[in-house]
């Protein structure tokens, strides 16, 4: 006879997206989320987990293992990671939640989910070849200066060359798709 807990587990496993682990593995290459044994080292050292109750790297890996793709790619949580790489350095199983999170971001973007400002950075990268454009800076004594007035050389950016090389990748299609971007929801 099955106990209640086991029965619930079967239900959850029935609903899961069985290909998610394979999908993440396709992007990851080496790191296997199935190797994670939930030791919590990543979360206990994570600087974001310190200031955000709703960001727990080990749970993201666990949800990936369970195949909860819909929850993961539609919510904002995977976009909170600041790439400090502490979890990569500390993971005893070489799973690296950071790598899993980046694989999930790629899957989210393929499905059309991406936060507004991160999408803007990508668009600026594609249009200008850099994520920000030259700015006017106000100094301590309230003078407005630019690279030109400071006597610094104007930056040369070979946007054409960069785009030509990037046309071999999926990036142009992704950028086109993200024009009809779907909103990423806040975690409740």
């Amino acid at each position, binding site marked *: 006879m099955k106990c209640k807990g086991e029965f619930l587990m079967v239900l959850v496993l029935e609903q899961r997206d069985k290909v998610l682990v394979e999908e993440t593995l396709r992007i990851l290459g080496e790191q296997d989320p199935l190797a994670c044994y939930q030791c919590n080292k990543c979360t206990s050292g994570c600087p974001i987990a310190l200031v955000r109750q709703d960001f727990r790297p080990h749970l993201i890996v666990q949800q990936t293992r369970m195949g909860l793709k819909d929850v993961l790619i539609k919510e904002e949580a995977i976009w909170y990671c*600041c790439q400090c*790489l502490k979890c*990569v350095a500390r993971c005893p199983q070489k799973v690296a939640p950071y790598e899993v999170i*980046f694989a999930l971001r790629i899957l989210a973007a393929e499905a059309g989910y991406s936060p507004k400002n*991160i999408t*803007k950075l990508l668009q600026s990268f594609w249009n200008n070849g850099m994520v920000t454009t030259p700015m006017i800076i106000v100094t*301590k004594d309230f003078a407005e200066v630019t690279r030109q007035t400071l006597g610094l050389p104007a930056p040369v950016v070979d*946007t054409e060359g960069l785009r030509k090389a990037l046309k071999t990748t*999926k990036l142009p299609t992704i950028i086109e798709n993200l024009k009809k971007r779907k909103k990423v929801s806040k975690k409740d």
Partner: protein
Amino acid sequence: MNLLKYLLYLGCMAKNEQMEYEISTMALLKHFNIDVEYLGDEACCGVPAKNFDKSAWLISSARLLALASQKNGAILSLCTGCDLSFEETSHILRENDVLRENIQEALDIIGLEYDKNIKRVHIFDLIYDDIGIKRLSQAVERDISHLKTACYYGCHAIRTPDLHRLDDSEAPTKMEEVIEAIGGQTEDYPERLMCCMGPNLSFDPKPVLNNVGSIIDAIKNRGFNLLSVICPYCFKTFSLKPFPVLYLTSLIGYAVGLDPNSLGMRLNRSPIEKIIPELAELLIEEF
């Protein structure tokens, strides 16, 4: 003898909004007679594309690395994020032959060749290895013993341990050695390996401000009066709070006797005039 020439690559943050870093670096390298020229292409290192397509990121970084090897030099970055991107790319492409061939196919279109022995160097490597502790301590002209400096490495400078980074990932000491060599005070403190959360600034600023606020509070309580950084993102986030922050290049430049104006300190919006009397005088004079 080092036969490679250094090709300066600024990165988006340093070139577009953090000009102080570039100005102080150039002044410092000139002072120590180190030749440096611009790489000549300031396109992004590709990290923002990493969120969307891994090969787009690798191509963007590999393209800049190939450009540097075409000019027969080592790529010198100011931003530790760009530097990590170059290191990671060259690590991945050294290990993975299939991926390297794929990336090379994309680079063939623009007539570049990727060399897997390409060298990357960060301005901190240059200060520590090329100028060196001994030359730094001999060059000191100004007394900065009143500055108790908190060294802040920033995540990308020290992680991950399997890549060639600027210092050890859990117990770095090089920046402290530099500060002591130029006559400043410093000491160990628990918050120095924290993350500034800078990348989230554009997207979710509230927790970022809480985070830097608590780090700055801790630093103040430990009696520090200056924070020294080597990453433009760390600088940007920490200068949001009213506490003196300086790039390590500016601090060294000040200690070796360079004029605060020639180090670009006027562009620094954090309250450094409290601890740099020459700058305060300069500002009063102009007023």
